[in-house]
């Protein structure tokens, strides 16, 4: 392998010398391969193709033929969206000049600048974009592994897991117990688990009002905590019990076969259990060798380029960039900076200083929406938060409704921005 690497390095230099002067060869268009067609990857592929007007060959590698958004998947659990409304295909991207390959990327040779796919295809690239989302850390919740996900779903990659969780909640016996094992930081969508609790409480309130919800949480505090707690008291009084680390929320074991949860030594029988494990960058990022000990991939704050390789970009959840939360909004925002800088490098188009932003809406109950957001700028060390806002407790119903309606507009906007 080592020998191979060295060998490839040699030819790599020759090849890139040719590529920086594509006119010499006439046709040779620069190639960008994007792995992962989610919030970061689909946006990057779309903007690269659209803005380069065909000057760049853009290939998107995505394992699934249809993308199911995690965003709004909690609203599906709560009965506010149907499952189909979360699904998006890649037809318009393909129509917009992106070559879409429906396959799993299994390896990256950064020296040779190639990506290998499960189907055996080898794709050469000049620039590589990785936006593979997350994978779960083995052993983060004792007793749980991916094999147990049919009994205790994570539902933290949207798809069949989300449908399974919804079914299990609906089938809970009267007065049954729902448990969530909340994840440690950092993880995708900081308010996600708590929005999910709200949506499940909404369903249970209607169908199974004597049911109970327990949340075992290793974190001292969580995103939008005051807003969620206010909402739970208001809409679901007495139903939700949050167990923070002071009460053993961090010392948890699950027993999927027995449907038991052990919190700080105390065994509880549960009827439905949602385990959201600790997370790391999507595996292909580690295979590509761009992650560090944290399990995430450090990037240059001004460009989203991997610190490990100047030809590789890492976007979205997989990246370690600083203050931005791991969200679809953030991934979409980062993808635009990446597309602009890649285009600048490959075609000489103008580049501008990076601007990033994020807003995350959460639904607590029907027409009771809240939001949190911030704008960010690159500093030498990290992407740093510049200004931020958050909904306030005690807001009136009309404002909460307008906030919820805004989130519907955002969902339509971001999915159009990702998929065309």
């Amino acid at each position, binding site marked *: 392998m080592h020998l191979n690497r060295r060998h490839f390095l040699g030819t790599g230099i020759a090849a890139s010398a040719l590529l920086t002067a594509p006119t010499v060869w006439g046709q040779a268009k620069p190639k960008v391969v994007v792995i992962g067609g989610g919030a970061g990857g689909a946006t990057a592929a779309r903007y690269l193709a659209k803005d380069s007007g065909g000057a760049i060959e853009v290939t998107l590698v995505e394992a699934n033929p249809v993308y199911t958004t995690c965003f709004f998947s909690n609203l599906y659990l709560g009965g506010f969206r149907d499952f189909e409304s979360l699904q998006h295909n890649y037809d318009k991207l393909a129509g917009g000049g992106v070559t879409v390959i429906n396959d799993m990327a299994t390896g990256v040779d950064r020296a040779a600048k190639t990506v290998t796919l499960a189907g055996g295809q080898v794709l050469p690239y000049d620039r590589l974009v990785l936006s593979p989302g997350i994978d779960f850390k083995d052993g983060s919740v004792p007793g749980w592994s991916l094999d147990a996900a049919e009994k205790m779903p994570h539902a933290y990659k949207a798809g069949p897991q989300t449908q399974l969780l919804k079914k299990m909640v609906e089938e809970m016996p009267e007065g049954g117990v729902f448990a969530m094992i909340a994840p440690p930081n950092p993880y995708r969508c900081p308010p996600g688990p708590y929005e999910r609790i709200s949506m499940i409480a909404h369903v249970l309130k209607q169908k199974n009002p004597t049911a109970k919800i327990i949340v075992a949480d290793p974190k001292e505090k969580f995103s939008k905590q005051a807003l969620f707690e206010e909402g739970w008291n208001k809409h679901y009084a007495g139903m939700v019990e949050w167990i923070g680390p002071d009460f053993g929320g961090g010392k948890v074991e699950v027993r999927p076969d027995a449907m038991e949860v052990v919190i700080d030594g105390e065994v509880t029988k549960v009827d439905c259990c949602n385990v959201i494990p600790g997370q790391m960058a999507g595996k292909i990022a580690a295979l590509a060798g761009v992650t560090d000990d944290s399990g995430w991939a450090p990037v240059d704050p001004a460009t989203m380029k991997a610190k490990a390789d100047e030809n590789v970009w890492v976007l979205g959840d997989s990246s370690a960039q600083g203050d931005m939360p791991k969200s679809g909004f953030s991934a979409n925002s980062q993808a635009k900076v990446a597309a602009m800088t890649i285009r600048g490098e490959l075609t000489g188009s103008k580049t501008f200083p990076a601007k990033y932003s994020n807003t995350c809406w959460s639904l607590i109950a029907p027409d009771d929406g809240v939001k949190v957001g911030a*704008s960010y700028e690159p500093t030498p060390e990290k992407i740093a938060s510049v200004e931020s806002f958050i909904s306030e407790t005690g807001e009136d119903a009309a404002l909460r409704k307008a906030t919820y309606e805004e989130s519907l507009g955002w969902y339509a906007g971001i999915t159009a921005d990702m998929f065309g």
Partner: protein
Amino acid sequence: MRRSLVALALCLALGPVPGAAEAIGDAERGATLFARQCSACHQIGPEAQNRVGPRLTGIFGRQAGSLADFNYSKSIVRMGADGLVWTLETLDAYIANPKALVSGTRMNYRGMAEATDRADLMAYLRAYSDRPQDIPESEPTARKTDPALSPEILAIQGDPAYGEYLASECQTCHQADGSDQGIPSITGWPAEDFVVAMHAYKQKLRPHPVMQMMAGRLNDEEIAALAAYFATLQ
């Protein structure tokens, strides 16, 4: 709080022009008139709902009797279908004597006799009709002359290429094709109106946390670039 925001917003829009032929009236007085004579039946503002009467947010440029979620009299619906649109002129007439304009209206309001009162009231209503593209006759009210927005700022020629990059950030929420669902459309605005609206957010005269933040970090050139770019979208 709301009250003072409205007054300030109008300063931005109208400018405290001496002897302004352009100003509609005194919005602050209008707010008081609204509270006394209209608010029993109407709400206005971003969160306004229908009550006895329909919400009046965005009334300028709106077709009469056109809110889908309000149950109007047949008479006003027909007038709307015939082409009655709320403008300074038509509103003035309706408020002066509702039944004179819409004979079968359900609005049980005796009318407001004083022309200056009506002008002040409309200056107040105007503050909640903030989409210049909906208001053909808005030019005199929506531009120029605010000291905080010097002619130099309005004269900046935006760079549409830079605008296109900056706009990509906006399009996470505002759709490029101009669809308008929960979040307003911002395509096809005259560049100057766009600049005024963005500065109103930047100066926190328009209340909305997301937009205040988005506009707050943009400098004058960047706002001009965005305006130049969005003006090119249909």
